[in-house]
């Protein structure tokens, strides 16, 4: 249990601290990988998230943190993507795609969502 907490804390610290030497991501390839590796199944085609997976658009993760998280997610329904499954460059591409998703409309600007 203690070991799990330590790993989770370490992961959380890594996630938001940008390490030097971040890779340059390719948005177009990232979008393809996002679809091919079924990321959209839980996070939605626009990274909007859902009950099965959290929102990815407008993420606060850095690329390093994103990679660290995807490599070793905390116990959840999230698959562990090891390097054999997705390389660091491919994860950088996915991260670039996620970061490229424009900010959504606010609920208050959508009449159908008025309380």
């Amino acid at each position, binding site marked *: 249990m203690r070991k799990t907490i330590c790993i989770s804390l370490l992961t959380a610290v890594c996630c938001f601290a940008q390490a030097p030497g971040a890779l340059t991501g390719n948005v177009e390839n990232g979008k393809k990988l996002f679809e*091919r*590796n*079924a990321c*959209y*199944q*839980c996070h*939605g*085609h*626009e990274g*909007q*998230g*859902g*009950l*099965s997976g959290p*929102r990815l*658009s407008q993420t606060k993760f850095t690329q390093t943190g994103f990679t660290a998280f995807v490599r070793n997610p905390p*116990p*959840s*329904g*999230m*698959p*562990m*993507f*090891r390097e*054999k*499954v997705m390389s660091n460059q491919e994860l950088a591409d996915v991260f670039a795609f996620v970061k490229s998703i424009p900010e*959504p*409309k*606010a*609920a208050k*600007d*959508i009449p*159908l*969502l008025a*309380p």
Partner: protein
Amino acid sequence: MAKSKKPVDRRGFLKGAATGAAVGAAGLSALKPPVAMAQQSVPRQVPVETGGTIEVTGNEKPGSDFMIDVFKSLGIEYCAANPGSSFRGLHESMINYGGNKNPELLTCCHEEASAAMAHGYAKVEGKPMMIMAHGTVGLQHASMAIYNAYADRVPMMVVLGNILDIEFRRGNAEWVHSVQDAAAMVRDYIKWDDTPVSLGHFAESTVRAYKIAMTPPYEPVVIVADGGLQEEPVQEKNLRIPKLVMSAPPQGDSGAVAEAAKLLVNAENPVIVTGRVARTPKGIQLLVELAETLQARVQDQRLRMNFPSAHPLYGNPGVLPTTVPLADADVILALEVQDYWGSTHKQTPLNRFGMESSPTTKPGAKVITVSAIELNHKSNYQDFGRYIEADLSITGDAEATLPALIEACKKLITSDRKRALEERGKKIAAMNQQARERNRELAALAWDASPISTARMCAELWAQVKNEDWSLVSFDRMVSSWPTRLWNFSKYYQYIGAQGGAGIGYGAPAAVGAALANKKHGRLSINIQTDGDLNYQPGVMWTAAHHQIPMLNIMHNNRSYHEERMYVALLGAKFNRGIDRSDIGTALIGPNIDYASIARGYGLYAEGPISDPKELGPAIKRSLERVKKGEPALIDVVTQPR
């Protein structure tokens, strides 16, 4: 050609067989004349091209007429069936002798659809529908849907045709459609069955079956209608149909209820978890009264329309109904909860090795369970879930037990305690308000996306049905529970829960059955229909068109068996083999299925596929105009996965 006569007194033979009397058919043949013939006034012989002769009786009342009288006495409105020779007698009596009314015969294209229609109907109307099927191949088709109804605690009257007496079986079809013990196949997931050997026996057992099905926990029952008994003339004297006397539902022990009230009133933060509580509209009122008396949060599994979704004491409507946030509860009242253990434990996910679990509840939290399911435990199928280590386990129907529990709680609440409870209620209401606002913000994400987001689809629907007398005849988990999160559910018929046994193929026919129940009340039925499910029983769309059952079917067409794909993806990652092939066996693409064309082929008004969210609102408007004229309609919406 020799005339086709039955050389035995069939009733006597069946009775003898049932009591184990070792009497040979040949012996009976020698002793008794063929009764059917003896009662005929002037039997005629009519040659037929198939090489034999048939008897034209004309003025006799077959046993199946009496059987229809029995069903009429029980107030059964509908009978869903795919036609079958083993119940042709009942079929003919229903439409001719019975006037095709109470019960009215519904033409179904598959027995699974018949049973699932009955499932959906019962959850709206609160009483069983009848289905008919062959005791062999028909029941084999219907069995999954019966299991769903069983696991969902839903009453259903299953009538099976069978020809027990070999002397009555004509040719191969009737041999392969006959069985010694027809109900054996489903006995593990029905509540009761019988194989009557006389009409008097049929009447008593059918009335008994109805009573058993409608005594909580509600469950399906099976009556086998013997083919000979259906078709032979009535000869029993003094036939009567017993009076239906319903049982008062079982109520929890009064001492245990008083103990539960003490725990709940003295708790700092009691939480009420609800599964299948409301059997009737009264159940909702009672649950509201209990929650308001205690000012306690209600965490609803949404297996029935238990509690108004806009009530300030409704627990976070943004979570999946299977995961219940209970970490803050010091007393948990679990009312007819499904899989309580799974709802209160975190388990090792699929992508980790081993299987470990830990409770999500506070250490020392007291657990009170109230459920009637312990009155009907079976062994083979494991729908009962894990054993619950409750502090107080009350066996009894929750709805029937609520009045006593409310009364006991009210007696214990002092004015000081009442003030404290009101403060707690204000905090819960504030959390509820925050959750609702958060849900609106989340619904805005991907608002303009294509494929269309499930939140947008549900918001577009809500805008056009909220001022109608509407009923959602499908469960909403597959669309991230957006209706629960955005709509205002308050009436009993506005939500009917899920399949029960998680058997796919329930959705479309159950929706048609529920819409049928809504039809006579003039309600607008809405079915959010998943694509994977529709492909099991698409023929039920024709049944809806044929019987003019008005309903709007709106496809959640994500072109995938989504949940299964996630499981495969998790395992592919776990074993380091990749995820990019997880679409094999799970995706419904190449070619894409054109549901609007399929629906048109079955006689529905249909639009789509629609991928542009701007086109959705006008399509809903046009389709609703058709539905309000009494037609079923379908809109194929290409959607995000959940």
